[in-house]
């Protein structure tokens, strides 16, 4: 009787152990590592940007330290030109892709009735994720505050209506062939097709974007000082 008691006790113990072993074997959670890698990449990117901004500031300071007012003034003018370029208010040329928006095929959305503001906004959003540096839609150069919206069934960019199909979208990027490849299989491409439209994408060695004519007038914003 004792041996049976012992054996069953042992058996129970083994089963419990077995259960413990099996339970432990759930799929490993590697999410933390991906998350960390993601955060690290972001932090490194920021590091690079901060360094760029720092060296820009240092360059300006050096210029201002000169004894000659004329060269100080020159430094200031250069700083202004740089800001204008950033704001999209200068003509800019470089490598990029030329995207032509056109009807998917004859008979499809030839008048461009499938075109809407949301389609264009999503395309810009996607172009930005793919590393576009500057964008012009038809002849409208985009800036930090370019409105894109529908007015009476027509898409307006920078308060100007888009022309009839086909029209070009010029995109500057340091890696045009990457952008082309990714744009061709992008969600935007599918969205366009759903509306009877398509985009022809062409890599260009030298693409010229027009300047945005908007003024830099600021009425409501003021810099926060001493903080």
């Amino acid at each position: 009787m004792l041996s049976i008691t012992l054996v069953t006790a042992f058996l129970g113990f083994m089963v419990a152990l077995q259960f413990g072993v099996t339970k432990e074997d759930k799929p490993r959670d590697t999410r933390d590592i991906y998350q960390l890698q993601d955060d690290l990449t972001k932090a490194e990117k920021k590091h690079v940007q901060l360094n760029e901004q720092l060296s820009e500031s240092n360059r300006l300071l050096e210029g201002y330290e000169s004894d000659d007012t004329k060269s100080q003034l020159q430094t200031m003018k250069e700083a202004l030109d740089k800001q204008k370029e950033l704001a999209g208010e200068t003509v800019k040329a470089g490598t990029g892709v030329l995207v032509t928006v056109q009807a998917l095929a004859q008979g499809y959305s030839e008048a461009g009735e499938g075109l809407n503001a949301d389609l264009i906004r999503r395309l810009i959003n996607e172009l930005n994720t793919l590393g576009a540096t500057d964008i012009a839609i038809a002849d409208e150069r985009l800036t930090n505050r370019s409105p894109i919206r529908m007015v009476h069934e027509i898409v307006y960019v920078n308060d100007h209506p888009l022309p009839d199909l086909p029209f070009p979208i010029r995109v500057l990027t340091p890696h045009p062939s990457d952008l082309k490849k990714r744009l061709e299989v992008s969600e935007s491409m599918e969205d366009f097709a759903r509306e009877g439209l398509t985009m022809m994408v062409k890599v260009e060695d030298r693409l010229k974007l027009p300047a945005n004519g908007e003024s830099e007038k600021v009425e409501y914003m003021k810099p926060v000082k001493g903080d």
Partner: protein
Amino acid sequence: MRNHRFSLAIILMVTGFIVVFSYQYFKKAESPKSEEANELWTQEHQLRTQLIKEQETNQSLEKKLENRREQVQSNEQTLANQKKEAHDIQKSLNNYRMLNGLTKVHGPGIRVSLEDAQYVPEEDDPNNYIVHQQDIQEVIYELYAAGAEGVSLNGQRLSIHSYIECVGPVVKIDGQKHTVPFIVEAIGDPHLLLSSLNMSGGTVDLLMNRGIKVSTEKKSDITLKPLI
């Protein structure tokens, strides 16, 4: 008694089986797995240390940059006080810096809050009742059209290169994650911004029709952080 022996034999057999099975299981599962887990742990630890170091560096660089930018501006101020020509350049330079999101700015404007619908009819797809990237963009672009000078989303300044991604209920702006409520803040003429959003058949109506909870509010002072 014979019956008893028989059952004992069976029990012993099962026990033997479990012992061997357990042993093999432990042997298989434990040794290589613990090594792997160890490796993962080390990797995670290294990544974490690296990240913390990187973030610390960035913080001190940010301080340094702020300091340098102040020096740059005070130099420009001195120059502007001396020369009329410099005065004009300085003014436009500072305007561009504000527009480009390189300075911390404040001013009057409005605040828009977007939230998922609270009531979802059972038979409907809940996806139709949550705030999407398009809804946020709808608000942002309408604000630009009404002359907003600077816009932020959940405290993050938006720029010409900003991109918004929708991953389920999470919205990523330039890679940074945000969840509801989505707060859009814009500097500009509060009256104009508000009335263009609230126009009948306008943005607010459109979003409400999609079942999104929208609230708008004029603000006398909004602060926007710089991009970098």
